[in-house]
């Protein structure tokens, strides 16, 4: 009996070490090399711009539409609750704070992971499977500098902008529902929002969150793509892992960051 438990524990330990700690170590080294080889991404910024188009610009539709709907739902739900306390004018504050501090970075991050992160993984994984990365290496061009780093930086740059647009669109959605549809006073909707939202504490903290999520998602995406076994099954598995791991990472990091930023007053 004791032996069986010991064996089980050993197997569990081996799984954790092999699947998680080893890979985390590799991923950290990979990030380090990517950062070290990032010169090209900035010296030849058009490479990064091209990737910003693919990861950022092409994600705009899903981000803007989702932002609008999330804002409209917040408007409805927020009004429903606030009106019970007779403070429906505070709707602007509720909508904008929820978006800027929490929903903007988190939901935009989750959408970004499934829209852009999966695409990055699949593209790099397929480039590896079809020997394009080996070919590049044989042509004396470092694939990390030429393929990985521009995609990484494009994601890091795009993510905060997408989160900001998501929040802006959400506020607009809240305005449409709250003011235009339900009839909350327009003046107090905006002025209360203006008075209650602090640039440093709320907006800037939201930007920091989205920046951290951007790093996490694109790091996971490029790593999974580069590490993918060069087969159809390997690439599809890596793509799934990108979405799952980065979604979990966003939620976990969000808790940690919120706890660090929490002031409790």
């Amino acid at each position, binding site marked *: 009996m004791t032996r069986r438990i010991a064996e089980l524990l050993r197997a569990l330990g081996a799984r954790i070490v092999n699947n998680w700690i080893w890979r985390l170590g590799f991923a950290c080294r990979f990030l380090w090399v990517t950062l070290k080889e990032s010169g090209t991404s900035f010296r030849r910024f058009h490479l990064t711009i091209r990737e910003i188009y693919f990861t950022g610009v092409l994600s705009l539709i899903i981000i803007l539409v989702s932002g609008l709907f999330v804002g409209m739902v917040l408007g409805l739900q927020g009004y429903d609750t606030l009106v019970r306390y007779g403070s429906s004018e505070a709707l602007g504050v509720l909508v904008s704070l929820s978006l800027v501090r929490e929903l903007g970075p988190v939901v935009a991050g989750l959408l970004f992971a499934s829209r852009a992160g999966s695409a990055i993984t699949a593209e790099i994984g397929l480039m590896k499977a*079809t*020997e394009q990365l*080996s*070919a590049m290496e044989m042509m*004396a061009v470092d694939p990390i500098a*030429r393929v990985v780093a521009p995609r990484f930086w494009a994601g890091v740059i795009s993510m905060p902008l997408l989160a900001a647009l998501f929040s802006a669109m959400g506020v607009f959605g809240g305005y449409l529902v709250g003011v235009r549809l339900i009839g909350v006073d327009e003046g107090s909707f905006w002025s209360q929002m203006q008075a209650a939202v602090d640039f440093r504490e709320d907006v800037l903290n939201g930007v920091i969150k989205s920046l951290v999520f951007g790093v996490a998602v694109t790091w996971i995406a490029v790593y999974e793509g580069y590490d993918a076994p060069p087969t159809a099954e390997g690439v599809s598995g890596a793509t799934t892992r990108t979405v799952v791991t980065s979604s979990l990472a966003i939620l976990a990091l969000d808790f940690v960051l919120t706890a660090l930023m929490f002031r409790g007053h």
Partner: protein
Amino acid sequence: MQDAVATSNLVEVDNVTFSYDERQILKDIELVVPKGKVVAIMGLSGCGKTTLLRLIGGALVPDRGEIRVAGQIVNKLSDAELFALRRKMGMLFQFGALFTDMSSFDNVAFQMREHTNLPDSLIRDLVLMKLQAVGLRSAADLMPAELSGGMARRVALARSIALDPMLMMYDEPFTGLDPISLGVIGQLIRRLNDSLGATSIVVTHDVAEALELVDYVYYMSAGKVEFRGTPDEVRAAGLSSLKQFVYGEPDGPVPFHYPAPDYQQDLLAQ
């Protein structure tokens, strides 16, 4: 031949052993490629040919032994030195490995843009010249997905000669091609080698095409060089495993059946 070229070898593989993890792929390989020649490395699938090519290109490092290209020991070079050496090498991958997000033109221009500061107008001329050499100047604007297998292989060939390499390496260049494309690629390998003044290594198991094309053959089996000689010597060779290979006989020293327990016993085991 060995003696005559001993002083002017571009590639020398000296006593090289290589294994992936526990599995030994190459055992004490000795091989030279004289300057200006086209040399074939032939053998069955999985005998270590491609691995040998990757070792010469510096993508893998041998467990033991030395690989010299143009006098430099490839497996002892720093990354920067290796990249400098690779600029003088061209490699054609088994299925071309064209960059799928770029047109044929951009694929061929890739190395010129990465490694030189040539103006766009000059790059355009050079790219068109390379594409003309493989007969595909009019395909410059096509994307890799729009090319047939043979055309893609030719564009990849144009890309690999973009910087006029001194050493060309071909990894199974004939795989999956129709007879016409196959002939075209074979002819191009020979013609480009001679007109560029390059040296070529062709890894293949396509016997008929290779024997027509090359100056010298290394026949590998199970990670070892079993036979070396000119195409005529290969055809005349008495070595039974080589004969089986050259004439494509299904059974012989290389058995038709993958090693298995006794058939009768296996069936009756239930």
